[in-house]
C-alpha cells in the first residue's frame, strides 16, 4: 500500500499543469466557447500529437502508451482546473473505455490506433430520457439480415456533433432496465445518423442530440454479445463517472485557489478581506472538501485501474469495489465542486457575478458535471443500495 503518487506520476502532473496553463487560459477557454465544435482543432492536434494524451490508457498493442487510470485522472484533474475545452473526456473516458471494456481484439485493433494517433475522436450515446439510469436506454436495435437496424433519439451526448465514432447503446424491443442492452461502434457518417448541437448553459462542454433514423449497421459493429451488455455498460458508466469526478476535483481546487488569491488582494475596511475570519473559515471549509475530493478520486482511480485491467494483472477483490468507489467519487466531487464554485462567486462579491471574471465558468461547469451521469443524490442512493443490500428506491424518481 502506497497511496501517494510516484515520481513519474508527479512528472505527468507537472507537464500537464504547465501545458494547460499556457494553452487553456481564460482567454483560450472563452474563444473555444464561441465556436460550434466547442474546441480549438489546432490545440487538439497538439494535445494528441505532442502530448499524446489520447494514447495514454490505450494498451501498447493497440498503438497506445499503456499507462493506467491513475495517470488518466491526473490529467483530468488538471484539465478540470483549467476548464480545458476539448474532446478528450468524451474520446477517452467514454470512447476508449467502451472499447476496452466491451470490444473484441479485432474491434480494438480497428479503432484504438486511430484514436491513439489523434485522428479519431469518439463518444458514448445511451440515454433517451431525462435521467441516467439504464432504463434510459430506449433506442431500439432490431436484427436484420446480417446486421442490425438502430432507431431512436439520443440525448445529452458529449461532443456528439463532432465525434468521429459513436458508441451507441440500444435495447431489444420490450426489454427492461439492464436486460436486452447491446452496444455498437458506429462511425458518425453512417447513413441515417443525424446530429444536432444542443447549446447549453455550460459553454465549456458541448453536448448534442443524435437521431438514428433506421440506421443499418453490420454485425461487426456489435461490441460484445447481443442483448447482454447491460453489465458492461454499467462498468463503462462507472469508469466515466470517475473521470468526471476527477475533472470536478480540479475545478473545485481552482475555485478555491482563485478565491484565496482574490481575497488576499482585495482590501475593505483598511485590511485584506482574507484577514476576516468569516472568510478564512469558509476558505478552510472549501479546502477540506477539495482534499477529500482528491482522496476520493485517487482511490477510485486505483480501483478503476484494477477493474479495467482485471483479466490481466488486476486485483479482483479491489475491482469489485468499482460501483461503490465510482458513486462515492461522483457524489462527493459533485457536491464539493458545486459548493466551492458557489462560494467562489460569493467571496468575490460583485465581480463574481460578472461575465468578465471566471467564477461563473466554474459555477456553470460544476452544475453541468453534477447533472451528467447522475447527481449526488442519485449516487448516494446507489451506495445506500450497497449498504442495505436491497433494490432500493426507484432510481428515476431521484435523478
Amino acid at each position, binding site marked *: 500500500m502506497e497511496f501517494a503518487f510516484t515520481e513519474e*506520476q508527479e512528472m505527468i502532473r507537472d507537464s500537464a499543469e504547465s501545458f494547460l496553463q499556457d494553452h487553456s487560459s481564460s482567454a483560450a477557454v472563452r474563444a473555444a466557447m464561441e465556436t460550434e465544435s466547442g474546441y480549438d482543432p489546432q490545440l487538439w492536434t497538439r494535445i494528441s500529437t505532442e502530448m499524446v494524451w489520447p494514447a495514454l490508457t490505450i494498451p501498447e498493442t493497440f498503438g497506445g502508451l499503456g499507462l493506467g487510470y491513475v495517470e488518466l485522472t491526473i490529467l483530468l484533474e488538471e484539465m478540470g482546473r483549467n476548464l480545458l475545452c476539448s474532446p478528450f473526456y468524451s474520446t477517452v473516458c467514454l470512447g476508449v473505455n467502451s472499447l476496452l471494456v466491451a470490444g473484441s481484439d479485432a474491434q480494438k485493433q480497428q479503432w484504438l490506433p486511430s484514436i491513439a494517433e489523434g485522428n479519431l475522436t469518439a463518444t458514448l450515446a445511451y440515454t433517451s430520457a431525462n435521467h441516467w439510469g439504464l432504463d434510459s436506454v430506449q433506442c431500439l436495435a432490431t436484427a436484420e439480415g446480417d446486421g442490425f437496424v438502430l432507431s431512436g433519439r439520443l440525448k445529452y451526448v458529449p461532443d456528439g456533433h463532432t465525434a468521429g465514432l459513436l458508441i451507441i447503446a440500444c435495447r431489444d424491443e420490450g426489454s427492461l432496465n439492464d436486460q436486452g442492452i447491446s452496444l455498437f461502434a458506429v462511425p458518425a457518417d453512417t447513413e441515417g445518423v443525424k446530429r444536432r448541437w444542443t447549446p447549453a448553459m455550460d459553454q465549456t462542454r458541448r453536448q448534442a442530440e443524435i437521431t438514428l433514423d433506421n440506421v443499418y449497421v453490420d454485425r461487426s459493429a456489435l461490441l460484445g454479445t447481443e442483448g447482454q451488455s447491460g453489465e458492461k455498460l454499467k462498468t463503462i458508466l462507472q469508469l466515466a463517472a470517475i473521470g468526471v469526478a476527477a475533472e470536478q476535483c480540479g475545478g473545485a481546487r481552482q475555485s478555491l485557489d482563485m478565491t484565496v488569491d482574490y481575497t488576499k488582494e482585495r482590501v475593505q475596511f483598511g485590511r485584506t478581506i482574507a484577514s476576516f475570519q468569516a472568510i478564512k*473559515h469558509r476558505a478552510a471549509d472549501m479546502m*477540506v472538501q477539495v482534499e477529500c475530493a482528491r482522496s476520493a478520486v485517487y482511490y477510485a482511480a486505483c480501483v478503476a485501474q484494477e477493474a479495467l485491467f482485471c483479466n490481466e494483472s488486476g486485483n479482483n477483490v479491489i475491482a469489485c469495489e468499482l460501483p461503490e468507489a465510482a458513486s*462515492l467519487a461522483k*457524489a462527493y466531487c459533485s457536491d464539493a465542486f458545486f459548493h466551492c464554485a458557489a462560494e467562489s462567486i460569493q467571496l468575490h462579491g460583485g465581480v463574481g457575478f460578472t461575465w468578465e471574471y471566471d467564477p461563473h465558468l466554474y459555477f456553470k461547469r460544476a452544475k453541468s458535471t453534477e447533472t451528467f451521469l447522475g447527481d449526488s443524490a442519485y449516487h448516494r442512493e446507489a451506495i445506500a443500495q450497497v449498504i442495505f443490500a436491497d433494490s432500493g428506491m426507484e432510481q428515476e424518481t*431521484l435523478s
Partner: protein
Amino acid sequence: MKISFSPEDEQFRKEVAGWLKTNLTGEFEALRFRGGPGDEHSFPQERKLWEQHMAKAGWTCVGWPEQYGGRGLSINQQVIFNEEYARAGGPGHMSHIGEGLAGPTIIAFGTEAQKQKFLPGIVAGTEYWCQGYSEPGAGSDLANVKTKAALNDAGDQWVINGQKVWTSLAHESDWCFVIARTQPGSVGHKGLSFLLVPMDQSGIEVRPIEQLTATTEFNEVFFDNAVTDADNIVGQPGEGWKIAMALLGFERGVSTLGQQMQFRNELEGIVRIAKENGAAQNPAIRQRIADAWMGLKIMRYNSLRMLSGSEDGSLQREAMIYKLYWASWHADLGKLAMDVLGPDSELLESGPYELTRLQSMYLFTRSDTIYGGTNEIQRNIIAERALGMPKEPKGRQ
C-alpha cells in the same frame, strides 16, 4: 499509487486477527467494543489488565522502535494492526496518552536516561499518563498558561503551583506531562517548559468534573507546591512550547485508523437498527446513511494519503484537515444515530441517568469538535498555514 497490501502484510493481518481472536476472550470478553471515546469511564481496571496481557505478547506500542520496547512495525503494518484491533472490538486503550503522546515525545526529545526511566512502564501497561495542557485561562489560547514551576533552592526539584482543567483520566494516571511557566514574568509561548510530574503526591489534588453525560472522565488538577525531580524536564527550560506543539503532531498518527474502525462499528450498528426499525425505507435517512458511509471511506483514504506522504514531520494539507474532518463527521453521526432511532432515541437504558451506548456517543460527539483544538481553531490553522491567509490579530503582545 497502490492501494493493495503485499502478501506479507496480509499474512501479518491474519496473525493479528488470530491473536486477538484467541486472546480477547474469557475474562476479557466483556471488554469488547468498550472504553472508546465517550465510554472511557467503563472498566478502567480491567482494561489496564488487558493492556498488560497484550504487552506480554508484544502488542503494545507496536510502532515504537524496538530499542525502546516497541515492535518497530512499518506504517503499513501499523495500519493493519490498528484496523484489526478495532475490527475485533479491542477495548479503547487506557494508555493512549502514554503510548500516543508522552512516549513519542520522550523518544523524540528526551534524554537517554528519561527513555530508560519512562518508556518501559508505558510499554508494559503498568504506568499511565495524562495531559496537563489546558487551564481555566488557557484553552484555545494555550500559550496563556499561568501554572508556574521553579527549581527549589537545592536545585534538585521543580516546585509547581497552579491549576489545570479538563485533564482526561487524571484520576487513573500515574504521570502527567505539564506545560508550566518556568521563566517568571514571561508571556505567551516564551518561557514555558515541559515537565513530567508524578500524580501520586500530596501537592496534587484531582477533582472530577461531571460531564453532560453524567459520567466523569476529565478533572480539575490543582498543584500546590507539587514537586518533580529536576531532571524530569523534556528539552531545555523555555523549550516547552516547541515540544508541546510537536506532541500535537503525534496525535495525527496511525492510531486514527483504529479510531475509524471504531466509527465503522458504530455506523454498522446504526445501519442494523435502520434495517430493523424500518428507517432504511426513508429516502432522507438513506441519503444520510450513504453520506456517512462515504464520509467514513473518505476519512480512511485521507489518512492513507497522510500516512503515505512525507515522513519528515511537516504537516501536509491532508494532515491539517484531518481533525476538523473527523470531528465534524462524528458529530453528524451522533445526530444520525438519534434520528434513525426516532422517538426511541429518548429512552434511557435505566434511571436515574444511565445512557444507552448510542446516546452516550451522541452526547459525547459534542466534545469531538472541542478537545484537541476546536473546529474554529482548526479552520484558523488551515487558512493560515495551508492557504497563507493573514493571522488572527491578538489582544496580547
